[in-house]
């Protein structure tokens, strides 16, 4: 019977326990107040029913009572606030050294790209016992990445990166839902998260790929002419990108930002918004010329430059080239939604 009628979701991440604990506290408090109020209604309704208590005794109110039932609920709710905020803070801050998976959502499928180069659709393989961080974007409408067993959810937005993370604690297959309404196939935009033992994952990850994501990114880096300006040894027009990832960057207006995935993405598409101090705003925009998967690869490449996992960009020894790289025609896959 109970196997057919589960009343509680599986608990398969480090976060799940924390969320459940707060949830049980809230359930207990809710039950307490609901029962208290129902009981008071019942008791008053019986004790002071007209037949037994024909004349009401008028009471105007009591400031002490009003204060009590203002302050006590306020106090209790502050517990919920602080505890909930603490969990949220953990949820939104992925630990350092997380394994990273890029997610590109589109109507109505999930595409996952591992840094090692594996690509999956509607199925995500992750190892047990590791922090996994997802860097997500959408090609069309808003989607939302939701794995109930991990108590994790984050909207996936077009034109931006959002991210979330989890640390799976139990091997198995878990539901992945799109929880933000996204059109006709919303309810079929479901998938599976497969949590594997580290050894099994290692086997899975090393089986046949055509190069890592960063190496794909490197190809784009050359192809789009990024290396014309951003190479390790041009004194140049653009900042050197080796080792820049994750570091603070001083901007020309004095602000300081961390060079994270979103910053890199924004700098490719809207270079003028946050110009690095000491450089001129001469970089052209690449908006509409690189699709989301290409951007993901570029980001992965620049990230890999930081930890020495990729070849540094070579300077282009062709002074004849136009002062600004002319981006190649957008790839065919960008416009056609059928490309997977």
């Amino acid at each position, binding site marked *: 019977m109970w196997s057919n009628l589960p009343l509680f979701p599986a608990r398969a991440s480090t976060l799940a326990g924390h969320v459940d604990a707060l949830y049980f506290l809230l359930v207990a408090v809710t039950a307490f107040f609901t029962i208290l109020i129902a009981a008071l209604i019942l008791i008053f309704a019986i004790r002071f029913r007209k037949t037994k208590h024909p004349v009401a005794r008028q009471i105007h109110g009591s400031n002490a009572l009003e204060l009590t039932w203002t302050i006590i609920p306020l106090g209790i709710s502050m517990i919920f606030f602080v505890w909930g905020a603490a969990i949220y803070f953990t949820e939104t801050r992925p630990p350092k050294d997380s394994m990273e998976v890029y997610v590109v959502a589109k109507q109505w499928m999930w595409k996952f790209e591992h840094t090692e180069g594996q690509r999956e659709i509607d199925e995500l393989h992750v190892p047990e016992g590791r922090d996994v961080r997802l860097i997500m974007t959408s090609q069309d409408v808003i989607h939302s990445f939701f794995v109930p067993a991990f108590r994790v959810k984050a909207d996936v937005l077009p034109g931006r990166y959002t991210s979330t993370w989890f640390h799976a604690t139990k091997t198995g297959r878990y539901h992945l839902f799109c929880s933000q309404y996204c059109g006709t196939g919303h309810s079929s935009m479901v998938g599976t998260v497969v949590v594997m033992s580290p050894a099994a994952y290692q086997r899975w990850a090393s089986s046949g790929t055509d190069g890592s994501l960063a190496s794909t990114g490197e190809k784009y880096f050359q192809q789009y002419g990024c290396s014309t300006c951003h190479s390790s040894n041009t004194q140049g027009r653009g900042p050197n990108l080796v080792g820049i990832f994750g570091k603070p960057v001083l901007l020309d207006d004095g602000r300081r930002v961390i060079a*994270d995935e979103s910053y890199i993405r924004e700098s490719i598409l809207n270079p003028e918004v946050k110009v690095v101090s000491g450089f001129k705003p001469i970089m052209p925009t690449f908006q509409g010329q690189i699709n989301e998967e290409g951007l993901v690869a570029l980001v992965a490449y620049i990230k890999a430059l930081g930890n020495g996992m990729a070849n540094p960009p070579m300077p282009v020894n062709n002074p004849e080239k136009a002062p600004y790289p002319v981006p190649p025609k957008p790839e065919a896959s960008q416009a056609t939604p059928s490309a997977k």
Partner: protein
Amino acid sequence: MSEHAHPTVKSFFGIWITLLILTAITTAASFLELGPFNAVVALFIATCKASLVVLFFMEARYLPKITKMVIVTALFFLGLLLTLTMTDFMTRLMGR
């Protein structure tokens, strides 16, 4: 109520001239290179002009207290809409 302390035709013309002069100033100021102060100057002058229109042409000065409160409430909630939305957009990049 509307009879006492009512603005005269002369004062209407005075306000009108002031508004025209302010318009000329704000256009001229936009040709100066003031950095972020261009926007400050433009909005300051716009607020002066709007206040003149509201206080004198719309006679907000002579309104009963309750109607004045209505105006203040509107500005307050407009401010809420703008500032609370800004709390999101301004702090998105913080500490990431």
